[in-house]
């Protein structure tokens, strides 16, 4: 009897995560760990984990991890990668982290084309702090700070930050995926692989936005949460490739 789904070397075993049942963070963690192993990057990996539900990611990842002040992941990643270009630098961030308090850092690290990978967990809510409205919350979505539903008149419309940065010349790879179904998980892995390749080859900035269930704050069971992504969230956040300038950049680099 041979184990087909081999345990990913860069994921700690026998630790129970603090994530709620059915939380997307766990799925993405596994994918990241698998890819670092498959691509032989784990030994030089340096991941910035955010203030957000993933704040304790270092308890699960088995490679070097640093924790960030809320929103500053890409600034830390920039500092680390510039100081030590040999590191394989990943900034793992939530939607509040990356697209609210960290907006300036997100925009500018992307615009500088920092040679880092950003894993962007979009669960349309502030998970960690108990379900407040995020810049990515859907119109009408009821949260702890939009109890009557997000009202675009006063709260603004959902922010598509990945689409924004995808337009920057320094952003080499950007894709939106979801982990709400096995097909989505497969695409997510492919997208993160492409992002990792981008950094590996020194081509520049890459970002993968992942629509990810937060059953707890959506007040849904996990299966329903996945359905909500596939039926509601994708209407606002269409999965798909947003930019891929790898070929172009490869040519530039010669």
């Amino acid at each position, binding site marked *: *009897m*041979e*184990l*087909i*789904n081999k*345990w990913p070397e860069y*994921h700690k075993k026998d630790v*129970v*995560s603090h*994530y*709620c*049942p*059915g*939380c*997307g*963070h*766990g*799925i993405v963690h*596994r994918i990241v760990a698998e890819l670092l192993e498959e691509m032989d990057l784990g030994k030089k990996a340096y991941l910035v984990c955010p203030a957000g539900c993933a704040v304790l990611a270092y308890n699960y990842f088995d490679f070097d991890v640093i924790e960030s002040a809320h929103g500053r992941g890409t600034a830390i990643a920039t500092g680390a990668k510039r100081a030590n270009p040999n590191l394989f630098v990943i900034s793992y961030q939530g939607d509040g982290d990356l697209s609210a308090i960290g907006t300036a850092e997100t925009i500018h690290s992307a615009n500088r084309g920092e040679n880092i990978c950003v894993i962007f967990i979009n669960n349309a809510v502030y998970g960690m702090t108990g379900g407040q409205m995020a810049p990515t919350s859907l119109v009408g979505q009821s949260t702890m700070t939009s109890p009557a539903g997000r009202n675009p008149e006063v709260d603004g419309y959902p922010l598509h930050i990945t689409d924004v940065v995808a337009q920057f010349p320094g952003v080499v790879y950007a894709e939106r995926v979801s*982990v709400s*179904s*096995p097909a989505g*998980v*497969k695409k997510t892995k492919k997208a993160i692989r492409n992002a990792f390749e981008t950094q590996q080859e020194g081509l520049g900035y890459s970002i993968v936005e992942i629509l990810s269930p937060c*059953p707890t704050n959506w007040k849904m*069971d*996990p*299966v329903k949460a*996945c359905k909500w992504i596939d039926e509601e969230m994708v209407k606002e956040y269409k999965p798909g490739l947003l930019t891929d300038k790898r070929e172009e950049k490869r040519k530039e680099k010669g």
Partner: protein
Amino acid sequence: MSKKDKVFTVKVRRDFCKGCGLCIEFCKKGVLASSAKLNSMGYNPAEVVKPEACVGCLMCTQMCPDLAIEVYSG
């Protein structure tokens, strides 16, 4: 991998399962179901109810956020 003539064995790491039900939902072969008995964390974990139906497609492990499923060939 999912050739029908192969045999697969599925195990749930019971005390690591949070009973989210995603594996159950996405296993199209009905191999998994929710256990009536709580595990040590107080969740109703997934359990294997139709072991022979498994085709080794790994849909379950793809979706499991807690790395709680092991699929063996043979």
